[in-house]
């Protein structure tokens, strides 16, 4: 009887050992590229693979640190954000709204958690006299396209108006889109936005912060707004360019 029990114990031990030995090979992916993952989900096992943007290492696992789309870049695994607000970054061109005028410049709303500062020195190429009325340049409520020159650790944002294409935006309308869709709206080397511009005969400026300025004939402006909303909604599906092209042609035919 005793022996029997011993034997049973032995076999159990062997089974356990076997279970321990069946380990996943080092550096195994637990998800596929372009999978959507939620925070806390395990993405990979082993030390061969490195954690990239939006992920972190927890012992031998790489874990998702946000909601995102899995992308592989060599040995690193990173997550592309699917949502989230714009965070000011150096060298970005953004569309901002003047919300305050004070002694040494203008305060701007940037569609992010932080306001930006435009100082007199950076405002124009011309000389501004001391104590001059700054509202003759930019009034409260004006929209401008400006460039971020510096972002501190405490997220103090400085912008400049000195540079090609940086100016006050007169007339037209400003619409808001999700900041992470901006690259899709611009397209490869601006292909998408150029297509919309040509089809609608509108001037369009896309700010990195998700604000878009559109100017043209009122009905054309509406058409441009519609197409941009369509790009935003369908940006994750393949064949986007063709679909937008068809949409624009259909609208053009309708208006004629």
């Amino acid at each position, binding site marked *: 009887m005793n022996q029997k029990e011993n034997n049973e114990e032995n076999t159990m031990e062997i089974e356990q050992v076997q279970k321990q030995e069946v380990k996943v090979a080092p550096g195994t992916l637990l998800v596929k590229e372009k999978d*959507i993952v*939620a*925070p*806390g*989900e*395990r993405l990979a096992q082993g030390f061969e693979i490195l954690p990239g943007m*939006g992920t*972190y290492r927890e012992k031998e696992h790489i*874990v998702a*640190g*946000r*909601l995102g*789309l899995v992308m592989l870049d060599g040995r690193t695994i990173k997550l592309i*954000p*699917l*949502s*989230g*607000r714009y*965070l000011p970054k150096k060298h970005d061109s953004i569309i901002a709204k003047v919300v305050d005028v004070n002694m040494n410049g203008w305060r701007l709303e940037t569609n992010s*958690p*932080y*306001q930006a500062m435009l100082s007199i020195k950076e405002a124009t190429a011309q000389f501004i006299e001391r104590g001059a009325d700054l509202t003759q340049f930019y009034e409260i409520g004006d929209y401008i396209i400006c460039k971020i020159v510096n972002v501190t*650790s*405490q*997220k103090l944002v400085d912008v400049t108006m000195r540079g090609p294409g940086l100016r006050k935006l007169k007339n037209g309308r400003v619409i808001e889109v999700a900041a*992470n869709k901006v690259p899709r709206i611009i397209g490869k080397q601006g292909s998408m936005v150029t297509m919309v511009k040509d089809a609608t005969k509108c001037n369009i400026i896309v700010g990195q912060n998700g604000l878009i300025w559109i100017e043209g004939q009122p009905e054309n402006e509406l058409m441009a707004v519609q197409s941009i909303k369509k790009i935003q909604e369908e940006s*994750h*599906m393949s064949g986007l360019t063709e679909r937008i092209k068809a949409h624009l042609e259909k609208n053009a035919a309708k208006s004629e």
Partner: protein
Amino acid sequence: MQLKVNKMVYKERLLGRKFDETRQIIAKVGVIPRADGSAYFRIGNTWAYAAVYGPRNLHPKFLQDPSKGILRCNYNMMPFSSSGERVRPGGSRRSKEISLVTVKALSPVLDLNEYPNSVVDVFIELPETEAGSRCAGITAASMALADAGLLMKDLVSAVSVGRVDDKIVVDLDYSEEAYEDGPVADIPVAMMPNHNTITLLQMDGLVSKDMLKEVLEKAKKVCIQLYDIQKNALKEKYKV
């Protein structure tokens, strides 16, 4: 005080529910278009909507933290949400406490170091409630925070587990909370399911040490199930 547990009359739950079974769950993400992130979590007759706004500028300025962003939660039961008396609109002592424990339950997963001096606002609204509302609120809020694209090391799942008489029951409903023929304990537990860490643990009632251990084991199992539901709801929104 001695616990009298000799009657053992609690043998069956309402609607034939098993002792370790939750009420029916529905979870959706992105239900409020104007919010930066939003979610809906329904467990039985308890409905929770959570809306996340931000990170955004924080005023008054003295509330700002220069080292990291802060999280603010607001738990609100709507006036005709409960089956008993009308809830007086606006904040109460109870809602203030629950808002506070919600912040404490959610902060351990959130990384707001990228957003100094700013705030993330979470509004939890409950149009209909029947026990377990703080857990439903926390579960919805954690999905909404993930939907808002914030950095989170895990989701938070919450459920109330407790004892009715000599039975350990998962996800108590109102009849169990108000059970009068024996001792009752209602223990809301919030967890980070992938880290096996408890972020909220409250208790109302009487419970022994052994029972509490058993309760936590059960809560852990349910939270892992809840995590899958939350995860699938999040993926559903962004599915191609």
